[in-house]
Structures are given as structure tokens and as C-alpha cells.
């Protein structure tokens, strides 16, 4: 469980219990069957929204076709009842299985897409199913009535029982969502949503988590659909696979608050009665009023409060209770993993690495080594191929030629998260954080990615924060951190995974003089503890202070390598990097100015 999960689960659990009991009590007092129906539908659409929220809210994979699963559940229950006489008590679980199967079938090809392509493709599935069903002649199906043993077939005479059942389903769905939100599942999804690449670099297998999210989401959606069929007793392809159904999940969640636990519930509680009563009152005079209202609701909420009511209200009115930071450990666990290397062997060996883009040799036969416990500085003008080099080592890009091994094991040909698991931590030029989440959550992602179990992961994250000096800020939302603190956060995130090698990309960029020195101190301390680092940087003076050795890249090739002072005075380096004019101008600098650090 994540840090602070206990408090949140208690708080949300109590709220859920109170609301559920209150709702059920209220439903018991309503005797008008039409209003009762509305009270039944609200939790059903709410739980449908909850299911969508797991994939598209937390996971960020916007799906416009969740009706596929809803309809799958509905039709499974209906067909099972009609053809096999199977009671919906069993039909709904069966529908959930079908939903899960559909999720795997749909997800496998479709997760290769991203962003709006994914959304559009997801849209196509329920529509295709709809057309096929119409072709097959399943225009309208009624569930056969069973007046005897009605309860056995979820056809209660007293409609209040429908509501109780719907609320029960919502409670189950919410508990599921709560567990997801507070576990590494939820954090992994949020990480993937924020920045999939950074998440992968932290060791998260994004494909696997997205698929899991889709399956869980589909199961809940199918249950909602199955219950819906039992309540309405009539299913048509359009009523369960149509666009309005998919839109229902989207609208309700977006309106209430995307990626929040209560968002779908709030949205359903407001919009469903509104739309239904509009439909009832005005449906004859103004057909289609429901669609218009939903459309207007979406537009208004996107323009005025794009994150949904829950976040907007919470941000304006409530101050978030920050859980206390976890205790500072008495002694920090050992940083570097035990070196199983024979003496004198380099930790990282790169040999003849090459990568070509179109006609451009971005990286050309690059070879170098990094010894355990040393800091290697990789410098070179912009466009020299430094970041591309890291991308090759990290698994972001496939290499064309060459060898790269970490402690003898090959790094090439692996996926990003696999390289991370080997013990490689990476930071990027542009910092990616999860602004709403506290610092500790931002960092613990790295520990999860390395495969550490929950308890150890938290320890590792706390230790990492202590090492970079941010322990006191563990509870601060990342959105409130300064540039320097964000850079240290990224470093901590990489450290939390207990790496053997750190690949740092321009960690000092954008920092002022003093901040630069602070970060340099942190890095120097890490080296003292035995960490091995390869760092790309521009700020020469800083690198001179920190690095044990330099490798100079220019136009994809290694121009020079060796001790910093030597490299800086190498004529070819000076020419390539600093320009001929610089040479001409620095006529015997005085010893004081040469050695002075900014």
C-alpha cells in the first residue's frame, strides 16, 4: 500500500458506508416506482463511471467505447437467461468473464495506439458490434418474466430491492477503486498517465499495467451492464452498445471529477436524475433533450472546470491534510549493490555503439567504459548525440551496431523497464513529476518499478529522499517544488530503485550558481557511498569539479576521453566545442581566474 493509504482508506471507507446506508434508507422511503427507477439507475451509471475512471482517469487512456463491455455484460445475461434459463445471479458473473475476455481481445491490438488514435479505435468496437448484432437480427430482446421465484432471477416485485442491489454493486466497485487507488496499481497507472517514458525508465511495465486496468475496468462495466439488463428487462443493441452509453461513462466521470474516487458518484448523482426527469417531462415535446443536456454539461464543465467538480471544489475550499512524513531511518541502507565484479573490471562497457537516423549518424562507433564508483562526465556541443547515446543504453531506442554491457550482462535489445530492473537509473532533460501527489509518491514509483515489495519500497524511497536532502518535504505536493527540488526528486526516484548505475541527463540545467553547488554536493556524496554515475552536462566548471573522467562527443563520435584537465586543454576538443576564437582569446589566463569557480 502507498504511504498514507491507511488514513485515506479509513476516511473513504467511512464516507462510503455512511453514504450507502443513507441512500438505502432514502430509497426505502420512496414508493413511486418511477422515482425508484431513477434511484436505481444512479448507482448503476455511477459504477459504470467508476469502471471507466480506472482506465481513463487514473490510467489516462481515454476510451470512447466502454459500451463494448457494458453491452457484453448486458447481452450475456440476456442471452443466458433466454436460451439457457440461467439465472442472472450466475449470468452477471458470466458476463464479467466475457467482459474480461473482451478486454484482452480488444486491448491487445489497441494498446499499440496512443492518445486520440486509441480513443477513436475504442469507439469503433461497440459500433461494429452494434452493426453486427443488428445484422444478426437481435433487434430487441426482452428478458422472460419469472413471476415465481422472482428473486432467483433478480426480478424483484418490490423495485426497492433493485436499488439495494445496485448500491451493493456500487459499493463493491468503489472498494475495488479504493484498493486500486491506494496500491502500487494506482500509482503505476498515474505514472503511465503522466509520462509513459519516464514510468518505463523507472521500471514500470506500462503495457502490463494498462492491460490490467482495462480488464478490471471491463469486469466492473460488464457487471453494471448485466444488472442494467435485469432492471430494464429489455435490451436493444443501441441501448447498451450505443454512443450515448459510452458517453454516459465519460460525461458522468468528467463532470464529477476525473481520476478521483468520488467523481463518478457525484456526476451520476447530479446528471442522471437531471437527464431522466428532463426526458420524462419534456421527452415528448422535445425529443433528444437528454442528449442536448449531456452535451451542454460536458462543454460547460470542460470550459469552466476542466478537472471536474470534485477537484475544483476541493481545491477552492479544502486544504488537504498532509500526512506526516515517514520517520527518518536511523541508518540508511547500503546504497550500492554489492559489487560482484572482479577487481579492475568496468561496470559499464560500451563498444562500437552506432545509431543512424535516415542519413544521419547520430551515434558513431562510440566506445568507453565506466568504472565502479566513478563519475564519468559526457560532454559535447548540442546535437553531439549525448542524449541519443543514453537512449540507446536505456532501451528507448534500438542500436544499429555495437555492444553495451552492465557487469557483463548485455543491455541492448531490452525494453526500457527491463533495463531499469537490471540496475540502471535514468533521469531526463525535462523533469516529469506528478504535481498533485506528494513527493514521497513521486519517488516511490522508482522503488515499485524495481520490483521491491511495498514495505521495502517505502524504506528505499525514504532513504533516497534523505540522501538528496529532501526528507522534510516528503509530504509536499510535487507541484509546489522548486526547479532544484524537482531535479533532486528525479534523482531520488532513480535512487529508490537501488540502481547500480545512474544515467543523469543535464541534471544541472536551469539551476543558479548556488543551487548548482548544492546538487553537486549531493552527487559527490553519492560517489563517496560508492555509486557509479554517467552524467551529461553543459556546465563545464561544474563538471570539472565533479567528474573523475570526461568523454567528449562531437557529431556522434568520441573526440577525446580522459582526465578533465587534459581533455579541456586538448586542442581538438577546444576547437570543436569552444571555437577557434576562444583559443585565440584566452591568451595566458592568470592562475587565479583559471582556477576560479563560478
Amino acid at each position: 500500500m502507498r504511504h498514507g493509504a491507511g488514513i485515506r482508506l479509513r476516511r473513504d471507507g467511512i464516507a462510503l458506508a455512511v453514504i450507502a446506508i443513507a441512500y438505502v434508507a432514502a430509497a426505502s422511503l420512496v414508493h413511486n416506482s418511477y422515482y425508484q427507477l431513477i434511484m436505481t439507475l444512479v448507482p448503476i451509471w455511477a459504477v459504470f463511471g467508476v469502471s471507466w475512471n480506472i482506465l481513463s482517469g487514473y490510467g489516462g487512456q481515454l476510451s470512447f467505447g466502454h459500451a463494448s463491455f457494458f453491452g457484453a455484460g448486458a447481452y450475456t445475461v440476456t442471452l443466458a437467461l433466454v436460451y439457457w434459463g440461467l439465472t442472472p445471479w450466475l449470468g452477471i458473473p458470466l458476463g464479467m468473464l466475457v467482459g474480461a475476455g473482451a478486454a484482452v481481445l480488444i486491448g491487445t491490438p489497441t494498446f499499440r495506439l496512443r492518445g486520440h488514435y486509441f480513443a477513436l479505435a475504442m469507439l469503433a468496437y461497440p459500433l461494429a458490434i452494434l452493426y453486427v448484432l443488428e445484422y444478426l437480427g437481435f433487434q430487441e430482446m426482452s428478458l422472460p418474466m419469472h413471476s415465481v421465484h422472482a428473486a432467483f432471477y433478480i426480478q424483484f416485485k418490490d423495485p426497492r430491492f433493485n436499488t439495494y442491489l445496485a448500491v451493493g454493486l456500487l459499493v463493491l466497485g468503489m472498494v475495488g477503486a479504493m484498493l486500486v487507488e491506494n496500491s502500487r496499481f494506482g500509482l503505476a497507472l498515474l505514472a503511465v498517465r503522466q509520462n509513459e517514458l519516464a514510468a518505463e525508465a523507472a521500471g514500470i511495465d506500462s503495457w502490463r499495467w494498462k492491460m490490467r486496468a482495462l480488464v478490471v475496468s471491463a469486469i466492473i462495466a460488464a457487471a453494471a451492464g448485466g444488472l442494467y439488463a435485469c432492471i430494464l428487462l429489455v435490451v436493444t443493441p443501441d441501448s447498451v452498445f450505443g454512443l450515448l452509453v459510452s458517453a454516459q461513462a465519460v460525461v458522468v466521470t468528467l463532470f464529477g471529477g476525473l481520476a478521483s474516487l468520488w467523481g463518478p458518484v457525484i456526476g451520476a448523482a447530479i446528471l442522471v436524475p437531471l437527464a431522466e426527469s428532463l426526458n420524462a417531462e419534456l421527452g415528448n415535446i422535445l425529443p433528444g433533450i437528454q442528449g442536448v443536456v449531456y452535451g451542454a454539461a460536458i462543454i460547460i464543465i470542460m470550459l469552466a472546470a476542466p478537472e471536474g467538480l470534485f477537484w475544483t471544489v476541493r481545491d477552492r475550499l479544502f486544504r488537504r491534510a498532509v500526512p506526516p512524513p515517514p520517520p527518518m531511518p536511523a541508518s540508511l541502507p547500503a546504497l550500492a549493490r554489492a559489487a560482484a565484479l572482479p577487481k579492475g573490471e568496468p561496470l559499464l562497457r560500451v563498444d562500437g555503439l552506432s545509431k543512424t537516423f535516415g542519413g544521419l549518424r547520430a551515434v558513431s562507433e562510440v566506445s568507453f567504459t565506466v568504472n565502479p564508483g566513478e563519475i564519468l562526465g559526457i560532454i559535447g556541443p548540442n546535437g553531439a548525440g549525448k542524449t541519443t547515446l543514453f537512449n540507446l543504453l536505456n532501451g528507448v531506442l534500438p542500436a544499429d551496431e555495437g555492444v553495451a554491457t552492465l557487469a557483463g550482462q548485455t543491455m541492448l535489445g531490452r525494453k526500457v523497464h527491463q533495463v531499469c530492473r537490471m540496475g540502471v537509473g535514468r533521469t531526463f532533460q525535462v523533469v516529469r513529476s506528478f504535481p498533485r501527489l506528494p513527493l514521497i509518491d513521486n519517488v516511490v514509483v522508482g522503488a515499485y518499478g524495481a520490483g521491491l515489495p511495498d514495505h521495502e519500497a517505502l524504506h528505499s524511497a525514504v532513504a533516497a529522499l534523505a540522501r538528496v536532502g529532501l526528507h522534510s518535504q516528503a509530504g509536499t505536493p510535487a507541484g509546489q517544488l522548486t526547479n532544484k527540488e524537482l531535479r533532486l526528486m528525479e534523482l531520488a526516484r532513480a535512487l529508490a530503485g537501488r540502481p547500480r548505475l545512474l544515467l543523469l541527463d543535464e541534471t544541472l540545467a536551469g539551476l543558479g550558481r548556488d543551487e548548482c553547488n548544492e546538487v553537486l554536493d549531493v552527487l559527490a556524496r553519492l560517489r563517496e557511498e560508492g555509486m557509479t554515475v554517467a552524467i551529461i552536462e553543459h556546465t563545464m566548471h561544474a563538471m570539472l569539479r565533479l567528474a573523475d573522467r570526461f568523454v567528449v562527443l562531437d557529431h556522434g563520435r568520441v573526440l577525446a576521453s580522459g582526465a578533465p584537465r587534459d581533455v579541456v586543454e586538448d586542442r581538438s576538443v577546444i576547437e570543436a566545442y569552444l571555437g577557434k576564437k576562444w583559443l585565440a582569446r584566452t591568451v595566458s589566463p592568470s592562475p587565479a581566474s583559471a582556477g576560479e569557480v563560478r
Partner: protein
Amino acid sequence: MLEVRNLSVAYGGLRALTDVSLHVGEGQFVTVVGPNGAGKSTLFKTICGVVPPAQGSVAFQGQDLLRLPAAARAHLGIAHVPEGRQVFRTLTVLENLEMGAYTKAGQAQWHRTLDRIHALFPILHERAHQLAGTLSGGEQQMLAIGRGLASAPKLLMLDEPSMGLAPAIADTIFERVSQIHREDGLTILLVEQRVAEALELSDHGYVLETGHMVLDGPYETLLADDRVRRSYLGLTDA
């Protein structure tokens, strides 16, 4: 021609510029130098209207710029060669130049200006129908400058033209810019990190450090100042 007074800008939660003033006279070549993160680009972005200031004023030929929307400033005769070149990658070289000449002044003098651009940067004539995204870094920089010239401007603003270019190519760019100043008498405001090159070309220089204008004066004065030499002419990077 361009008068910036007491400009203070907050950008992304940081105080990017604090009480910055500078003056560019007609026909002058003025340079603003400073290390990474000093606020140079923010200064340009504010002048061009992409970032709003918290305080201060910017006037061009007596007209208050801050009242005008960003797109209107080009029509006054201010040409901006942005940081990182920012050419239109999916348009051809010639189309990029045509977009540079979007203003009335640019359109009126189009043919003359195009000839001048081709004379300065013959490669742009050769590659007229090539997609701008396929040009090399140096060629894109030339295109960006050509695009700036195409609007027949009164003031040419260049934002770190040497960034990301190999030093030899950057030198060529500086030579051309100097040529434009000398031969066409164009007023130029240059922002650069490579101090030596920039100061050498200009009439007057300003030194910007973490959002403050710490020093200004003619080239000789600045070069003689120990602070500048210590900071920039010692162990500096490209």
C-alpha cells in the same frame, strides 16, 4: 528606437526579470549577454508579446508595445529570429521566407528583399523548394534570419543564434549578422551566451545575470571589466 524600462517578469513561478531597462538606438547593434538561465529569452518573449510582464514598459518608436497583441508587433517593423530557429518544418524554404514577408512592408519590398537574402545566404536559393525540416542546423539558422529580413524590418532581434551549432558555423552566422548591420544599416538586438563573439560585434552591451541587468556599456568598457572576464572569458562552455 526600442526602450525597455523597469521591466519585471514572472515566468513559471520564478522571477525571471527584475527591474530591467535597456535602450536600443536607431542604427545600433546592441547585445545582451548572460549565462544560461539569466532571463535573456524571457526578455525577448516579453518584447514580442508572448509573455506578459508584471511591471514596466516597452516602447518601440514611441509606441507602447504592451497594449498591442503579439501578432501586431511584427507589423510595426520588429522581426524576431527565435531561439532554436523555429522554422516551419513542413513548409519549403521559399514558403518560409514568404511567411516572413507576411507584413505589408515585407510584401511591398518582397523582390528586393528576396534578392538580398539570396545574396547573403546563397544556400537558401539553392534549396528553395526543399522542406525546411530537412535542412541542417546551420542552414535553418540562415533561413530563420532570412525570414526575419523578409519582413523588411526596422529592428532585427536575434535570440541565441549560435545555440546548438558547431562553432565554425556559428562564426559564419555572426559574420553575416555583422554584415547585415554594416551594409544595410539595420538596427540589431542580439542575445547571446557566447560572450566574446557577441560583444565584439556590437556597439553597446548589456550583461544579464539571474534576471538583473548588472552591467552595461560600450564594448571596450565591458571587456576591460574584471567581472565579465572572470565570469565568461575564463572556464566557460559554448
